C-alpha cells in the first residue's frame, strides 16, 4: 500500500500571533513551526500501517525551503520519503491542485490529510484533493483500517460516530482519534540520523494561481477585565449584567 501523508507546516500552538503589511500577512518572526497536529495524528497512523502492513509512507508539503525541517522531522519519525512542492501556498485551492498533480503521478492508494490546518483553518484541502483526483473521501476521521482494497473508516458526527466502508483509492481528512496524543512519536536519535539519508525530493510547482487572496486579518478583541461579585450580592450581579454587559 502506498500512503501519502500531507503535512502542513504551521505555527506552534503557543505562538504569539501578529500580522504585518497592514494586517495582510502573518508575521513569522520568532515563530516556531511544527507539523500540523491533525496531520501528525495521520502520520502516526500511517506509521502503524507501515509497521503492521508493510505500507510505504511518503510525506508531502507545499511550501518554501524553510518548511524542510518539518518534513525532515516526519522522516525522522519514520516516513520513507518526502516531497516538497516548491512554492509558497496561495490558498487552499492552489495547495489542493498542487497536491493533486503529485498524487496523480504517484498512484497512491491512500492519502491522509489533516481535516484542517491549525493556522488558517480552511478545512478544504482534503475534500478538494479527492475531487481533483477522483478518489473516495471521508472527512473527520477518528479511526481507519484497511484490508486489501477495502477501508473501514470511523468518522465523528455530531454527538456520535459513524462507521463507513469504502474502497481505495481514498483520501481522508484525519483528526485526533486516528491515534491518541499519547501515541504521537518523538523522533528517536537513530531516526534523526537516518532522516538525512532518506530522499527529500523537491518538485517544481504546476502553474496554478490562487483563486483568493487575503485582504486583512483581525485578532479577536482582547479579553476585558474581570469583575468579581460577592456571592451574597446578587442585586449587584443583576445590575452589572443588565446595565454594563447588557446581556439581560
Amino acid at each position, binding site marked *: 500500500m502506498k500512503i501519502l501523508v500531507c503535512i502542513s507546516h504551521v505555527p506552534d500552538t503557543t505562538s*504569539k500571533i501578529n500580522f504585518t503589511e497592514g494586517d495582510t500577512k502573518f508575521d513569522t518572526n*520568532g515563530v516556531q513551526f511544527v507539523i500540523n497536529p491533525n496531520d501528525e495524528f495521520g502520520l502516526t497512523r500511517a506509521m502503524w500501517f507501515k509497521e503492521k502492513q508493510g505500507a510505504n509512507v511518503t510525506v508531502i508539503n507545499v511550501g518554501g525551503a524553510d518548511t*524542510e*525541517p518539518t518534513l*525532515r*522531522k516526519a522522516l*525522522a519519525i519514520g516516513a520513507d520519503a518526502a516531497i516538497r512542492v516548491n512554492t509558497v501556498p496561495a490558498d487552499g485551492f492552489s495547495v489542493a491542485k498542487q497536491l493533486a498533480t503529485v498524487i496523480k503521478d504517484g498512484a497512491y492508494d491512500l492519502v491522509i490529510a489533516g481535516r484542517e490546518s491549525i493556522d488558517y483553518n480552511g478545512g478544504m484541502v482534503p475534500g478538494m484533493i479527492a475531487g481533483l483526483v477522483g478518489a473516495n473521501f471521508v472527512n473527520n476521521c477518528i479511526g481507519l483500517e484497511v484490508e486489501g482494497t477495502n477501508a473501514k473508516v470511523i468518522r465523528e458526527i455530531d454527538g456520535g460516530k459513524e462507521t463507513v466502508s469504502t474502497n481505495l483509492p481514498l483520501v481522508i481528512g484525519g483528526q485526533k482519534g486516528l491515534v491518541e496524543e499519547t501515541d504521537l512519536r*518523538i*523522533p*528517536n*536519535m*537513530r531516526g*534523526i*540520523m537516518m*532522516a*538525512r539519508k532518506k530522499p527529500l525530493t523537491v518538485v517544481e510547482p504546476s502553474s496554478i494561481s490562487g483563486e483568493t487572496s487575503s485582504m486583512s486579518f483581525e485578532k479577536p478583541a482582547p479579553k476585558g477585565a474581570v469583575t468579581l461579585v460577592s456571592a451574597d450580592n446578587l442585586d449587584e450581579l443583576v445590575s452589572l449584567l443588565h446595565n454594563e454587559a447588557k446581556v439581560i
Partner: protein
Amino acid sequence: MEKDILRGGQFLVKEIECEDIFTPEDFNEDQLMMKEAVTEFIDREVWAKKAQFEKKDYALTESCMRQAGDLGFLSIAVPEEYGGMGMGFVDTVLVCDYISGATGSFSTAFGAHTGIGTMPITLYGNEEQKKKYVPKLASGEWFGSYCLTEPSAGSDANSGKTKAVLSEDGKTYKITGQKMWISNAGFCNLMIVFARIEDDKNITGFIVEYNPDAPNGITMGEEEHKLGIRASSTRQVFFNDTVVPVENMLSTRGNGFKIAMNALNVGRIKLAAACLDAQRRVISESVNYANERIQFKTPISSFGAIRQKIAEMATNCWVGEAATYRASKNIEDRIELRKNNGKDSHQEAELKGVEEYAIECSILKVAVSEFIQKCSDEGIQIYGGMGFSEETPIESAWRDARIARIYEGTNEINRMLSIGMLIKKAMKGHVDVLTPAMAVKDELVGIPSFEVPDYSELFSEEKNIIKNLKKLFLMVAGAALQKYGEKIEQQQQLMLAASDILIQIYLAESAILRAEKMAKKDGEDSAKEQIAMAKLNLFHAIDVIETAGKHSIISFSTGDEQRMMLMGLKRYIKYVNMPNIIELRHIIAEKVIKENKYCF
C-alpha cells in the same frame, strides 16, 4: 592544522576572533531536531510529572530512563561499533543540556549513567569489555553507576579504603569496602568500582556486575533522604568479598585514579550543560509568574526590581551557554584532529581531546553550577511567598541546584584544579604563560599610554578590556608563582581568587564573541539584547576580578611591588565609556517579558 585549534588554557594568552568560536546559533538542522526531540520527551514525560519526582518516586526515574534508552538518548556518545550513535561531542553536550532541565532527579540519573557509569568502559575498557557491556548500557537494557566516594574519601578520592584481593589461583579479585552517595544504585546492573590492591599508591578500577537475585556479597543501604534530587536513587553500597573476574579490571592496576579523574573531566562540562536548561525553565516560569502576578494594580514584571532580576538571570544563562558550547566544539575539533592524525585510536582521541580542555571543563562546572543556584534563588524571590511553596516548580529547582556545586568535584576543588592545571600546562610548555607574564611586567614599569583609542566599533572597548584582564591575570599569577613556586598549591585562598579571575575572563570573552558573531550575521539591531547581555556580564566580571585581584595581590606582596600591582589592577580594569547597566538590564528584561519566556 593542529595549531589552528586553540589548545586548552590558551584562551588566556591568545586573541580569539568571533568566527573561531561555536555558538548555539550555529546548531545545524540535525542538532535542532535533536534539541526539539529531547525537549518534547522531557516536556511530556518528565516535566509533566515533576510533582511525582519530588515525592521520591524512584520507579518513575527508572522508567523515564528506559524511555530515554528507547529513544536513543543514552547512546549518543557511544561509538557505533558498540551499539551507539557515535555522535560528536557537541551533540552529546546538547542532549545533556536539554534533557536535564526539568528535574535534577532525572538529570542526575542520566548523567550518572551516560557519563561516569558508561564512559569509563568506553574510554578505558578493552575490546572484550566494551563488546560485553557497552551495548547494554547504550540501549538502556542495563544501567550503570560509579562507586568512587567512601565515607572517608570524598574530595581526596585516592584515599579510599576499599580493597581488592587477588585469589590464590589468580583468576578473581575479592572486593571489600563501603561506597557512599552512589547515584542509580537502586536500579543499576553494573558498577564501576574503585578499590586498592595491596598497598598500591593508586586505586584500581573494576567493572562489577550486579544482580539483586545473586548479590555476590553486595548489599545496599536505604535510599538517602536528600535536600534535592529527591527521586535520584542514592544509596550506600557495601561490598563483602564480592568476587570479580580478573578480566574485569578496568585498564591497568593502579590506573584507577586516572580513570576517575578523566571521567570527571567529561562529567564536568556535561554538568555545566545540565545546569543550562534548568535555568531556561526557571527563567520562563519566573517571568510568566511576574507577568501574571498583579500588585499595586500592575504586573510585577513592570517593576524595575523584578526586571533587574530577570535581566541578570537571562544574562547568566546566555553567558553559560556561550562558554559551554564554545568549549564543547573545541573538544570536538580536538578529538577529530586526533582521530584523523592516525596516531590515536578513537578511545585515545576522546580521552586526550577532553583532557586537553580540563581547565575549561573545571571553569564551566564552577560557573554554570553557580548560575543555576543564583537563578533558582532569584526565581523564588520573584515568586515571593509562593516561591517558598512546594507547589511551585521553583522550590524544587532551588533544592536541586544545590548539589551541582558539590558533585563532580566541589567548586572549591575545581577552582583550585583550574589554576593547578594551568600551572602544569605552563610548566610543560603547552601554554606559554611566562613570556606574556614578563611582557606585562615590563609594561607595568613603563609609562602608560594616555591616548584615547577609537572605540566606535562594536565591542572594540570590551575586547580591549578582555585583553587587559588577561594581562591582569598573568600579572597576579606570574608574581604569585614567583613568590611561592610549586608550593602555590598550598595557598588555597589565593588559588581560589586567581581562579575567579580566570573564570570571569573565559565567560566574558565567550559572551562578547557570541554577541559579536550574532551582530555580524544579523545586524546590531537584531542582536541588541545579546550585545546588552555581553556588556552587562563584562561589567560584573570586572567587579569580581577587581575584588579577587586585590585580595590576591595584598596577600603575597608588599611595598613597591604591591603598589605597582595595585596600579596595574586599576589600569587593566579601566573603562573609557562605562556602560549604563540599568539601561542594559531594561533592554534585556523587556524582551524576556514580552516573549514571556527565556528567548535567546
